[in-house]
Structures are given as C-alpha cells and as structure tokens.
C-alpha cells in the first residue's frame, strides 16, 4: 500500500518537474520577443503562478471556483452565483501524456491534457474547483464529460447543434435554466436578477477593454506580438474578469502611448498572419512562436482561446431575469463560430471580416490531431480563401515538441511565399500603372 502511495508521489513529483519546466520555457520564449509591453507582465505572472509556481487562483480570492471546459459556458452565470470561472482547457504536454493512458489514442490532445490534470491532481487551479461544467460540443468533449466525472464532480451542458432558429436558442436557454440550481448548489448562493446583471457587467467590462485592445491590435505595423496576445488571452482563463479588465485597461493605455510614439514591434512589410482552427491553449504556444520567430507577425486569431472568447458582448434588451437569460443564450450560440454547429457559414464571414480589418496576408489553419470538426471546415475555408487570393496552409499538430522542426520548415516556407506573393503583386501593379501611362 505504502509502495503504491510512494510511486504515486514520485509520479506527481516527476510530473511537476517536467510540466513546470515546459511552461516556464514557453513563457520565457514569449517574453523574449522584442518590446514586450510593461502592462502585459501581470498576465504573464498569472500564467507563471498557475503553471510554474503552481499556485491557486488567487490567494486573495475567497470565492469558490467553477471549472469550465469550453468558452460556451456563460461565465456571467458563474459570477452571478458568487463564484469565479476557471477555463481548464489546457495545452500542457505533460498532462497530455498522463491523460493518454486513460483517453483513447485518437482523441484530441486538449481533452487528454484536461483528463491528465484530473488524474495527476497536481494543478492547484484544477483541484480548487468545486464543480466542472462540461459543454457537450464535439464527440471528445461529450465523452470526456462522462469520464472526468470520476475525478471531479461534473455537470454536462448540452449545446444544440443548430443555432439559426429561435427554437434552437430556446433549447440552450432551457439548458442554462437547468444549470442555475446546480451552480447555486455548488456555491450556496442564489442567482438573482441583480447578481446576474452584475455578472453580465463584470464580463462586459472585460469585453469592452478587449474591443479597445483589438483596435490597437489591428494596427499595421503591429504594436505588440501576437504570441504575447495569445498569452494575455489565455491568462483570462485563470483570472477573475474584473482583475483582467483592470490590467487590460493599463495595457490599452500603454498601447495608446506606443502608437503616439510610433513604437512598433514589426516592420511595415512584415507578413501579417491570421491563425484559425483548433484552440491554442497555454503552454502550447508552439504555432504562434514559430510564426513570429520565422519573421511573420501574428496579427489576428480566430480561435476560442483567443479573440472569439470575448468578442461578442451580451446585449440585454429586456432587463428582467428571463430577458437577461435569453440574452445570454443568444450570445453564447448565435454569433459563435465553433465548428460543432451543423451550419457554421458565419465563420467564413468572420474570417473575411478579420482579413479586411487586420490586413491579413496569409492564414495558418491549425488542426490539433483528432479535432475532426475543424478539419471538416478546412476545405470550405480553402475554397473561400482561394476566391480572395489569400494563401492558406493546414498545419496539423499535437501536444509534443517532436514536430517542431517540421512545422518550422513549413511555416518558414509559407512566410516566404507570402513575401514573394506580395512582391509579385506589387510588381504586377507597377507594370499595370506603367502600361496605363503609356
């Protein structure tokens, strides 16, 4: 018996050693990118506290925490219940290898990493959660909700696969009403119209700061590195929204002064790349880092751990309790561009919009191995980008570092291709003008 306990401890020790090393290495690489804003440091500190120093959410916080496994869980409801949401979608390679023993081989690495944390019990933020809310989105998350229940009390949240009709939103609304007593039971606090309005305001503040930040992010040349933006967005998962919004406000002020001083992190002609596809969860910042280390600039992302999570605000028309609930149900399904929905043509429009606004020159379509829903949409995206003459590549990756060199070569070649294309387009345009003058 004592031998088993000892080997369990040994395993945990090894896990901690390895996982903290990987997380610290990615944090350092992201920080090492030129001109990191001073105001971005608190976000990095949060990631460091969570993954390297292995601290709980916040020593000052006395509120309970509720773990969520997707951006489709309304954090407003959790705040309204007096708790803090923690998004547990992780990119930990070490947790992935632990989860690999329990979860089927072909499942996506994100699900394996979550299960790995559940099993090893070494991530305080995970252990701290009183409850997990697991949205039933894709097949892997659906089955994960059943499996992870053995290590942590989990409540599945049904996401309807259709979202266009009002009847579809009604399905989700009923699900949210079902979630209320569960959250109240976990926190011991009643969700009232007042607390819900407060919850919506807390998240709304963060969204407001985010929308301002996005304005700065669109600037060409870039004001800060996309990898650092991904880290900042990931920090939202482990911070109360109000604290995150306060730091974001500071960052926005710094962005403003950078803009006024003309302090940029990229050159004018540096290829601007958008990343879309499977989530990029900390510490798996492999793809953003490769893009920026190879001379590109990650100008935007269309991923759930990035911009998508905070892009659309809740718009309350009827301020009554039911009105707010309806607004939540609508916000978490209708504008969502997650490919788990049957008809997700909105995602194409959103990417088109992002290409225009962020002056995107190339797209990296990230597919985590086993993430079939994103893979299905690649073909549509490829056709649409072909029409817009925007180069796109599909990059398949896993939670390990074995494929880094191969990815580096592909991303480097892609960046070169964008540069050549821009040059050819420019020459073509010049020749056209010459001919016109003649």
């Amino acid at each position, binding site marked *: 018996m004592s031998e088993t306990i000892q080997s369990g401890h040994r395993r945990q020790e090894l896990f901690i050693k390895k996982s903290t090393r990987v997380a610290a290495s990615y944090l350092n690489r992201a920080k090492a990118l030129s001109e990191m804003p001073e105001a971005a440091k608190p976000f990095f500190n949060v990631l460091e506290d969570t993954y390297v120093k292995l601290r709980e959410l916040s020593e000052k916080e006395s509120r309970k925490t509720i773990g969520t496994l997707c951006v489709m869980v309304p954090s407003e409801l959790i705040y309204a219940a007096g708790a803090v949401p923690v998004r547990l979608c992780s990119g930990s390679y070490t947790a992935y290898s632990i989860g690999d023993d329990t979860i089927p081989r072909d*499942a996506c690495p994100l699900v394996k990493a979550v299960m790995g944390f559940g099993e090893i019990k070494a991530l305080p933020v995970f252990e701290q959660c009183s409850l997990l809310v697991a949205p039933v989105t894709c097949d892997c998350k659906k089955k994960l*909700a059943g499996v992870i229940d053995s290590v942590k009390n989990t409540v599945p949240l049904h996401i309807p696969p259709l979202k266009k009709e009002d009847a579809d939103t009604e399905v989700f609304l009923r699900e949210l009403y079902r979630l209320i007593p569960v959250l109240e039971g976990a926190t011991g606090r009643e969700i009232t119209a007042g607390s819900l309005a407060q919850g919506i305001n807390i998240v709304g503040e963060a969204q407001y700061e985010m929308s301002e930040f996005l304005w700065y992010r669109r600037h060409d040349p870039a004001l800060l590195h996309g990898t650092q933006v991904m880290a900042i967005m990931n920090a939202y998962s482990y911070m109360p929204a109000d604290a995150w919004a306060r730091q974001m406000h500071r960052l926005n002020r710094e962005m403003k002064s950078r803009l006024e001083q003309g302090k940029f992190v990229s050159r004018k002609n540096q290829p601007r790349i958008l990343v879309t596809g499977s989530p990029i969860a900390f510490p798996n910042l492999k793809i953003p880092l490769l893009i920026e280390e190879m001379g590109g600039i990650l100008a935007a992302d269309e991923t759930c751990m990035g911009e998508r999570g905070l892009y659309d605000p809740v718009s309350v028309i009827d301020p009554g309790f039911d009105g707010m609930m309806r607004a939540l149900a609508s916000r978490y399904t209708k504008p969502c561009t997650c490919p788990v929905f049957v008809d997700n043509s909105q995602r194409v429009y959103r990417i088109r919009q992002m290409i225009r606004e962020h002056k995107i020159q190339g797209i990296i379509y990230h597919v985590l191995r086993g993430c079939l829903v994103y893979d299905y949409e690649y073909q549509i995206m490829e056709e649409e980008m072909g029409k817009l003459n925007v180069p796109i590549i599909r990059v398949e990756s896993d939670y390990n570092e074995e494929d880094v060199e191969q990815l580096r070569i592909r991303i480097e070649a892609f960046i070169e291709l964008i540069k050549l294309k821009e040059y050819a387009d420019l020459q073509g345009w010049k020749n056209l003008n010459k001919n016109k003058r003649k």
Partner: protein
Amino acid sequence: MPDLSTYKKEMKDVLQRLVKTMPAYKELQFFVKCVINHYLADLEKNNSNIVVIGSNIPEELVLVQGKMPYWILGGSRVSSMWADDIVPRDTDPVSRSGLGYVLSGFAEKSLILIPLVSDSTRKLAYILKSRGLKVHTCHFPPVKDAQTFLEWRRQYEACRDAIALHLKRPLTKRALQKSKERISMAKMQIQDFMEVSQDTLNGTSRMFILGSYYCADNLSEWNFQLECLTARLRREHKRQNSGKSKVLLLGSPIYFPNYKVPFLIEESGLELLWQADYTTLSMQGYTGLEQMRKEHVADIFYRNDTSPAYVKNDSLYERIEKLLTEKEIDGVVYHVLKGQIEYDFELGHFEELFEKLNIPVFRLETDYNYQDIEQLRIRLEAFSEILNQRRYRRFGKETVAV
C-alpha cells in the same frame, strides 16, 4: 452517378462468400434478393421519397408513407472512396460511405433525414445542405432525464412535421398507429428469429438476415418471409454444440457489405453468438402495443436508444450486462472503426464489467480496407486460442473445438 462496376463487384463478392456459408433453404432467397435490390436496383432507380443516413430515426415516422424509406447505413468500401476528396483523412468509413452514396447523385429529390449522433454526421448534414439537398436533422439531448425527454419530444415532432411537409400530407394518428403496429410485429418476429436461429445458422448469416430489414421495401412482406424462415429453422435439426468459443461482437456497427470482421471471427474458429451494436439492438428492442399505448412512442425510442450520442451510454451498458448474464458468452470482440472515437471512450466502462464477469475482451480496430486482414487474423486466432484454453479448463477437453 460514378462508375458502378467496382461497387457491384464489391457487393457480388461478399454475397457469393456469404451464400456459400448458408444452408440451401429456399426461404433464404427472399433476403438475398432483398439486399441485391436495395444495393443495386434501387440505387440506380433513385426514386425514394425519404432517405435516412444512419439507423437512429424513429421508424414509425418514416414508415408512415406506406413503404420503407431508403436507408443508407454506410457499409460500402467503394462508396466511401467516392467521398474521399471531401472529408478529412480521419473521418470514419461509415460517414464516408454514406456521404459517397448521396454525392454520387442519389437522393436529389428526396428528403434526407440525418440523426446527429456524432461530429461527422453534423458536418455531413452541412455538406449535403450546402449542395442544395433537402436535409432534416434531429439531435439527441446527451443526458437522459425528465426534462431532456421533453426536449427529445420536440425533436420528434419537428421530424414528424418535416416528413409531413415533404410528403405534402399530414401524418395522422391512425397512420402512425398502423406503422407502429407493423414495426412492433417485425420486432417480435426478429426476437423469435434470433432465438430459433442460434442453433441453426451461423452468426454472419444471422447478421445478414437482420441487416436485410433495412433493405426491405415492404415491411409486412419482409416480416412474413422472416416468419417463414423461422418456421423452417424450427423444423430443422439443431446443430450439435460445436464446441467453439462463443463471442459477442460489440462496438461500432457492422453494415453490409463490410463483413470483414464477422468473416474473420468465424474463420478463426470462433462462434459469433450475438452482435450488439445500436442498430442491431434497436431491431431487437421489442415494445408491446400495450406499452406503446401507455407511453409516448418518442419516449420509448429515446429511453432505449443505445447510440453513442450520450455522455454516458447507460442504456447500452444495461443491455450488455443483461445479455452477458443471459447468454453463455466466452469472450467479447470489441470492434472499433477508425475515426469512431466514441466507442473507444465507452470501452473503458465496459472493461470493468467484463473484468467483473471474468470475460476476456479483444479490441479490434480496423477500417474498410483489406490491408490489415492478415494482421487481424493472427490476432483473432490468438484470441480464439485463449478462449479455447479457458473452455478446456472449465469444461474439459471434449467441449473444445479443434
């Protein structure tokens, strides 16, 4: 329509192989013809009003038009290749095959019903919709409780309305009642057949006859023919106990003509006693008319559904637990088709059950290609030997097949 010659050859080869293993009863002819018509003549005629991709649709709704819909279950290797350029590499062969059928030009004027049991079915529905086809989907609330039963009823009613709109006539209570009765009769007949045929037909043949249910145009006729076959089997001499180890086939459903696994099981010296996937189990789930009167038919369907659409597939677990205690099963072959990840997730739960009951389980992962057949054969033969050894230890030498 793509070149059908390879497709026809695939059907012909499997049918020939299958017929060789069947006894020469004239009552079996109907089922063979039924399958040939479905996969060849009906596909070319392409005049079905309603097409269902998958089997997980309340049958009384689709039967209300008076004849069976065209079921696309997705067992063809050739049709799966027709969709190769459209779907991602890791897509499961069943979805590929189903999509291949429809994209070959089939069902352009039909209403296509798609039960959303997995990620692939959702995306498949979108691909077909975006190509201008008339598609109706129905999804399954992933946790079964009182409130989700109501949710499922809404789905059921939406499906009923979509069918009525397509057929341009209301689905009356009387018509629904009639189709419920016909299905109930058929299921009762299937149960009888399964019990009687155990000692007279081999597992693959039984699987084939059961599968022909989804090929029938006229359910009453199919039912009558099954009754005749069951009567014939009842008269025939029962086989002596073969001494072979009996296995239960669990996991991903096996659809005609993809009979690679059942053929292999029987060639490895095992007896395929029972197949228990969600399609087969739904066929065997007989519900009496009395119960149908008491309970909403949508509720019965939802409660008994054993598809992988649920967070925890308790219905399947209960059915398997019952089956394992009722039947003499020596081992379980757990079949996982590449890309059908849900079955792999469910295996963990089942393994605990098998361990409790001391039944060995063998996980077999494959797709519709034949490249892995020799490797699978070796593994299955090794499993067969293990089971024989166990039988030998339990019952003595004379009970073990050589």
